[in-house]
């Protein structure tokens, strides 16, 4: 477990991103961003059928991973409860898609985000009073409470079977309404994830984001210079929960169902793994981590069948030992410019 808490890396690698003289992100950064987005946009055109879907899914899991990075990498709080926000996003979207005819994409987004925000507010209020492992355990416990509620409240949530619904069309009311094609959905998800990334990145660089990083570096000192640390933590958890909920909405729309399995702690655990593998405190690292981990699981399950988790575990362990910064950790300073 200790591998999952942010490693006490050397000061050289855990840098708050104020570097005087560096005026905003470089042209190289924006070029790289444009290239990556372009490649992701083109991927469904060249990938075979199964992998098209897989690429869209990776983006969604990547958004979930990014949302938790705001807490894990930037604030130093390891959340083991992100499945609750993700799951409530799913069920919130499901509610709108089942209750309103014809199903509306934007209404689903709204209800999903509201559901995730309400849960995030609740979890944030209680969990942020605690630190370190106690915070993590509290988030885990809360997410499991929501799991049990959803699993057992069959009349409303469909219980074990979850809820299924029709996919809403991509529509602007009064203007047009076209059903999502597989590629159209991919591009929609890509747009949402890319915008979320830019927004999260800006938040981490804002004065508020710098306070979060100061809390990570030295919480008592941050308090002593006049910051009401708990309030910043509450807002951080709520923002993080909101983006996790957004990922849940996207997943619900892609897969046309909401199921209790997605509120289970396994999802939260994988979210932490994405962060550790990809590189905490970089935002894009966790997306890369999600891609790497899911790809690894997919490939190994085809080769080793039911034993696929053994090689996955071995590789994860080796990475934690030999690559504690994660896949993109070496880029941390540049990515945060």
């Amino acid at each position: 477990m200790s591998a999952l808490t942010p490693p006490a890396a050397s000061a050289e690698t855990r840098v708050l991103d104020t570097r005087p003289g560096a005026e905003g992100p470089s042209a190289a950064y924006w070029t790289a961003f444009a290239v990556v987005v372009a490649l992701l946009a083109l991927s469904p055109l060249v990938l075979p059928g199964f992998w098209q879907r897989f690429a869209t899914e990776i983006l969604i899991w990547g958004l979930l991973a990014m949302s938790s990075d705001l807490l894990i990498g930037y604030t130093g709080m390891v959340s083991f409860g992100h499945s609750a926000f993700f799951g409530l996003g799913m069920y919130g979207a499901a509610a709108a898609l089942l209750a309103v005819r014809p199903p509306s994409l934007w209404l689903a987004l709204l209800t999903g985000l509201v559901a995730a925000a309400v849960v995030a507010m609740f979890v944030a209020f209680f969990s942020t009073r605690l630190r370190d492992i106690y915070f993590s355990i509290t988030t885990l416990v809360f997410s499991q409470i929501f799991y049990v509620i959803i699993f057992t409240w069959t009349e409303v949530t469909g219980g074990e079977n979850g809820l299924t619904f029709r996919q809403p069309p991509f529509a602007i009311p009064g203007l047009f309404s076209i059903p999502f094609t597989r590629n159209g959905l991919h591009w929609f998800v890509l747009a949402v994830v890319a915008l979320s990334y830019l927004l999260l990145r800006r938040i981490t660089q804002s004065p508020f984001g710098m306070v979060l990083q100061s809390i990570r570096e030295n919480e008592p000192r941050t308090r002593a210079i006049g910051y009401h640390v708990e309030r910043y933590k509450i807002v951080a958890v709520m923002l993080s929960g909101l983006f996790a909920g957004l990922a849940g909405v996207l997943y619900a729309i892609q897969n046309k169902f909401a199921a209790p399995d997605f509120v289970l702690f396994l999802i939260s655990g994988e979210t932490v793994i994405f962060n550790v593998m990809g590189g905490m405190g970089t935002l894009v690292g966790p997306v890369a981590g999600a891609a790497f981990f899911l790809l690894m699981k997919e490939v190994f399950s085809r080769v080793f069948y039911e034993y696929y988790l053994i090689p996955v575990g071995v590789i994860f362990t080796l990475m934690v030992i030999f690559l504690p910064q994660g896949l993109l950790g070496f880029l941390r300073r540049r990515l945060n410019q």
Partner: protein
Amino acid sequence: MTNGPLRTPTAPAAHGRGPSAVDAPILRTEALTMRFGGLTALNRVSLAVPRGEIRAIIGPNGAGKSTFFNCITGVLAPTSGRIVFDGDDIAGLPPHRISKKAIARSYQITNILPGATVLENVRIAVQSRHHSWSLLRHHRAYGDVIERARVVLASVGLADKAAELAANLSHGEQRNLEIGIALATEPKLLCLDEPTAGMSVTETHATVELIRRIAADLTILIVEHDMEVVMGLARTITVLHYGEVLAEGSPAEIQANARVQEVYLKT
């Protein structure tokens, strides 16, 4: 609880409001008491620090000096007694509220953001007073905050180290960064906990000069073991012993005090 009505006969009696408010001490403790279980770390400590003074608090290890600082800066809530700062009772307020009241401190054990640049250490402290809840603009867009941070850095002699990681500074430089972080919060009262601990003779000299310079604008409470530093800086010295005020007076008076000689200066 925070506002125990304990009055002590030793507390300054004359503090009539009105025209004399400016002359009223900026900090006054009344029968300040801190108990940890059976241990009384501070026992009815009453003292008054006039505005603009450099006050030293000395005493043997375990005398309660750090506890006194921790009570004033909100790290500990005193068991009883009052702490009146600038007219308000601040006993028991949390640290961030005390900071907002314009009390700052530096720490005995260096307490900075090691993974941040020197500038960021000070900038984040300045930011605590300006724009700290802004979420959608880059922090570097707030030039006023950075400008102020640079002024503070220059005042503690670290202007040319702004871009360095705080962890890479020398011990003496980190000690001065501590003071810079505290100054950046625009305090009226600055509590310095052994600011020259572990410094070389030259560094100590420079820091004493620094403290003298910043003392022009604020009131300073200083805990220090280096008697040369204390005697050179303080106008008044308060001697704590087993959590009680043993003596109070000018450096010359304290040096001549037989009790102080016995319990502290000689040992």
